[in-house]
C-alpha cells in the first residue's frame, strides 16, 4: 500500500513538472493554430492577410474555412488547382517503391554487431515521436536516431538527406500513418524546453542576404506566392515527411528540405545532424503536435 501511495505521489509530481516544461510550447502551438484558422477562415479578412493577392485569385483559386487537421496538406489545403493536381498524382503515388525499399531495409539489414533495425526500433510506427530530446545527447531527429543505431552497431552513418535514409523513414512514416499515429513531441525537462526555445528563435530570426526568417514565408507569408509558388504554412509542415518532391524527382527528408530553404534565404545551409538543424526540427514538429502523421507524401 505504502509503495502505491509513494508511486502515485512521485507520479503526480513528475506529471505536474512535465506539464510545466511544455507550457511555452503549448501556448505557441495554440496561438499558431488560432492565427492560421483566422487567416484562412474567410476572404473577408483578405485585406489584412493577403494584401497583395489579386481579387480574382482569392475568389477563384482559394478554399476557405480551413480547420486544424486540414493544414497537414500544406498549400493544397487552400490552393484549389494545386489540390486537384496533387490528388491526381496520389492515385499513383511515386513513393510506393520507397516504402517497399524501406521495409526491406528494416527487415533484412544485418549489422556487424549481429543486431538489426528491429532491435533499435522494435515498433516501426514511431515517425510521429521524433524529434526527441534525449538526456546527454540533446535533440535527436528520426534521421539522427537511425544513424545512432547504425553507428552503435558498427556501421557507417547514412547520408541524412536522401537514399536509404529517406526510404527507411518512408517505411516508418507509412506504418505510423496506417496505425493512425499522431505527431507526439514531448518536452519534459528544463533542457528540452531550452532546446525548444532555441529552435523557436532560429525559426523566427531573419537570415541570409535576403534577410528572410522561416516565418517570413511560412507564417506571415503563408498563402501568398513567390512567382507562381504558394508558400505553405508552418502548421502541418513536418507531418508529410519524408517528401517526394517533384522538383527533386526523388524522396527527401526534412533535413534536405530545410537545407534548400537556407539556400533560398541566402545563407550557407546548416548541416543535417547539427544542433541548429535538430532544434529547429524540434520546434517545427511541436507546432504540429496532435496532427496525423501523413508521410510520405508528394509536394511540388
Amino acid at each position, binding site marked *: 500500500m505504502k509503495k502505491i501511495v509513494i508511486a502515485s505521489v512521485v507520479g503526480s509530481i513528475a506529471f505536474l513538472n512535465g506539464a510545466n516544461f511544455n507550457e511555452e510550447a503549448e*501556448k*505557441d502551438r*495554440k*496561438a*499558431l493554430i*488560432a*492565427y492560421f484558422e*483566422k*487567416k484562412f477562415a474567410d476572404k473577408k479578412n483578405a485585406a489584412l492577410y493577403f494584401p497583395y493577392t489579386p481579387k480574382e485569385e482569392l475568389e477563384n483559386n482559394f478554399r476557405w474555412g480551413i480547420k486544424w487537421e486540414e493544414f497537414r496538406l500544406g498549400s493544397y489545403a487552400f490552393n484549389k488547382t494545386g489540390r486537384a493536381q496533387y490528388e491526381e498524382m496520389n492515385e499513383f503515388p511515386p513513393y510506393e517503391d520507397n516504402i517497399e525499399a524501406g521495409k526491406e531495409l528494416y527487415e533484412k539489414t544485418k549489422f556487424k554487431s549481429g543486431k538489426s533495425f528491429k532491435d533499435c526500433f522494435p515498433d516501426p510506427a514511431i515517425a510521429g515521436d521524433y524529434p526527441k530530446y534525449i538526456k546527454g545527447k540533446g535533440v535527436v531527429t528520426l534521421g539522427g536516431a537511425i544513424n545512432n543505431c547504425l553507428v552503435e552497431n558498427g556501421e557507417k552513418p547514412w547520408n541524412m538527406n536522401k537514399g536509404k535514409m529517406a526510404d527507411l523513414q518512408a517505411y516508418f512514416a507509412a506504418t505510423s500513418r496506417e496505425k493512425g499515429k499522431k505527431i507526439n513531441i514531448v518536452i519534459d525537462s528544463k533542457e528540452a524546453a531550452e532546446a525548444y526555445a532555441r529552435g*523557436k*528563435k532560429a525559426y*523566427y*530570426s*531573419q*537570415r*541570409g*542576404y535576403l*534577410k528572410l*526568417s522561416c*516565418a*517570413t514565408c511560412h*507564417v*506571415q507569408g503563408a498563402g501568398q506566392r513567390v512567382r507562381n509558388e504558394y508558400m505553405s504554412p508552418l502548421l502541418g509542415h513536418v507531418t508529410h515527411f519524408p517528401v517526394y518532391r517533384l522538383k527533386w524527382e526523388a524522396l527527401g527528408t526534412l533535413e534536405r528540405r530545410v537545407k534548400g530553404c*537556407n*539556400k533560398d534565404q*541566402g*545563407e*550557407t*545551409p*546548416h548541416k543535417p545532424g*547539427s544542433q*541548429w538543424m535538430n532544434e529547429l526540427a524540434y520546434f517545427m514538429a511541436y507546432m504540429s503536435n496532435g496532427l496525423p502523421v501523413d508521410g510520405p507524401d508528394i509536394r511540388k
Partner: protein
Amino acid sequence: MKKIVLAAVAFGVTLGSANLLEEAVKLDVKKVCDVKTNGLEKVIGVAEKFNPEAIKLGVEFKRLGIRNREYIKYTKEAIKKKQKEAVIKYKEKGKEKSQTFPTDYAAWRACTFAIRALQQVKEAEETWRLAVPGDGFKF
C-alpha cells in the same frame, strides 16, 4: 597551472569572438565596403577579417551557389594578380563551376556579405519576437 592557462586562453578566445561581432555591428557597411574610397586591398581585408566569424556562427551568406568564403578567396587572387575581373570558382551538386565579376564588384560584395551576416545576428535578436503569433505578432 596548465589548466588555468588553458582556461584563460579559452576565455580570451570567446571574448575575441564577441569582439568581432560587436565590432562588425558598429560599422557603416556602405562606407567601409566602398572600393573607390578605401581601395581593393582594404575592402577585401575587411571581408577576410569578419567572414570566419560568420562561418563560426552559422550565418555565412551564400548566393547562387557561391559562399562568401569563395568570393573572398578568388577575389583576393584577382587583386594580387591585378586582374580587372575575378573568376569565382565553386561547386554545385558535385560539379565545378565558375562565375566572373568585375574585381571591385566582387570585393564590395564579399565585404558587405561578411559584415551584414554578423550585423543581422544582432538585428534578429531585437526583432524576432515581433513575428511570433501569441507574442509580438498580433493578428
